[in-house]
């Protein structure tokens, strides 16, 4: 792969939000690949790094809104881990592969689309900068 965005989606929030986007036929680019997880807190740096090793253009971790995680701290931990992953990538000189952690509610398909668009924009920008 080289253009795909790998998105780890919490089954309580981002996954149903993505479904709603589909139900409302809010079209978005085909390069998204969703991996469903029980909580954003399941995702660790290694999963993000592996996605990049396999050639992902960007990685997204999507969890519940800050303060509304079903597992209390899962989304805040995920945020820290995404930050850590960014550092890990930066220290090996990889700064053109965006990673993002975003919070959203299950009924926010528009936010889901916004996040995707932003990520695609960041991919484009980093490609152009290269």
């Amino acid at each position: 792969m080289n253009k795909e965005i790998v998105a780890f989606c919490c089954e309580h929030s981002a996954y149903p939000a993505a479904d709603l986007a589909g139900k409302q036929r809010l079209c978005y680019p085909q390069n998204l690949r969703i991996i469903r997880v029980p909580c954003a807190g399941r995702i660790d740096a290694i999963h993000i790094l592996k996605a990049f090793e396999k050639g992902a253009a960007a990685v997204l971790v999507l969890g519940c809104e800050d303060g509304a995680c079903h597992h209390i701290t899962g989304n805040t931990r995920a945020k820290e881990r995404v930050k850590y992953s960014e550092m890990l990538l930066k220290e090996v000189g990889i700064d053109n592969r965006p990673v993002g952690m975003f919070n959203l509610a299950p009924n926010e398909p528009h936010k889901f689309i916004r996040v995707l668009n932003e990520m695609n924009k960041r991919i484009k920008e980093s490609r152009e900068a290269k």
Partner: protein
Amino acid sequence: METKIGVFICNCGGSIKNINFDAAREKVAKIPSVTCVNLSSNLCLGEGKEKMLSYIKEENIERVVVAACSPELKEHIFRQVLEGAGLNGHFFSMANIREQCSWAHEGDVTVKAVELIKMAVNRIRLLQPVEKKELSVNKEVLVVGGGFPAISSALQFSRIGLRTTLLEKKPNLGGKLREIEGFYSLETSSMIGAVEEDENIEILTSTEVVGVEGKIGDFTVRIRKGAEEILRNFGAIVFATGYETEVSPQDFQLKLGINIISQERLAQMLQASSVERKPESVGFIYDVSDENSRLPTLATLNNALTLKERWGSEVYVFCKNVKVDSEGVEKLYREVREHGVMFLKFDEKPRISAEDGRVKIEAKDILLGEDVTLTCDLLVAEEKLVPAEETEALSTLLNIRTDSRGFYQDENVHLYPVSSERGGIFFIGGCRSDLDFQRALVDVSSVVMGVYKLLSPGKILVEAERVKVDRQKCRTCLTCIRVCPHSAIQLVRVDNEKEVAEISDLACDGCGICAAICPAKAINFEGYSDEQIVAQIEAIGAS
């Protein structure tokens, strides 16, 4: 021998037009371990399910991938089909080719659909069986507290046949019950009498909780009475330890005394048969140091009305906002105003000083837009609600978060109304929020519901060892124990020797935070293991 994976693709009644199903089928058939690919148009309906079932049997399929609509909609239906065919319901994965593929994109999406199926196949190949089992639970309930919510919930638990222990740190039951007795036609003595007589309720007074170990359905509570400590077992614990009030006259640089009194003192004066001198004018003030004034508003309205009725005094209420967002309070507020009580609303903090043995209040009333100066015989000082003394210590002991004001229960909407992040531990009444009497009553019955559904069957169905610690790999670093939001992990001693972390199937809520953080990679979350996640990534872009 390789596992036989069957892939069932549904074209949703032929409505999905942007996937070339024949091409997809051909490609999917070439994925290793896929032994059969079946194309359907109505997989989720009775006839589709029947066909699926017979296929599974005919082809000896061991694991199933369904490529159709969202698992959010139909996952449970297909798992039932698997179980009906005698397969482990866990050996199942869905590729969401409708909501997250066909419907989400313009143009042909065959390539993506095939990839989603590959991801599901890659994941399912690595799955291990998960068995369900029933674990028995202790059906006794511990209620901590002696006030109205505590007593009332004990009585309701008894009504549905759950044995309850009522544990109060004070020597007597009742709490603040006596204070509200007048308002709600409550009889303290009859309620306490009822719990004392109830065979299902055991009462422990002058007793404290000093330790809680274990998990939902199986708590061991260390109880201290005097110098003696005992251990008792319960299936659930309900905290109804109430709140405390802090009278804050310090804001006015004056002290409580004859002219500045607390609501409690006023209530005593009003209940007394005679009073030395009836005050001609009384002021109330709140919202100065804390605008969370639902209960101060209620106390003020009730007391102001009684003041008018009993003593006929002039009554002035200084506040920012009248908190009428409880049942019947707007009506009460109107009644109070009809009785001639004046409400003055300030924005800046009023100035309060002593003058000739009376209390002078100077405030800028925002409705009148004028400075108002009033001199009262009595001023009822603001009362601030604060958490009960032991809240902080006990929440640390329980490993449970408090809210931003220090009361029990984290401000997470998924815990409302009465749950905590630990299964089997509940908070009701004033110890978790500033609840008026009606809301407190609702809390009581809610917790009875919450506990009933956990304990009444006497057993809980769990997925056995879905999240599991590999004892060989565990380095006993305690990381998982520290990070588990549900306190589901404990240290256990294996073979009388090594201590390792162990995850309770009862308390685990399946988030995977521990599996992600374990530095020794000793925790496996079946269904979401590292290998299973990475296998999905590996399928991406491979075509």
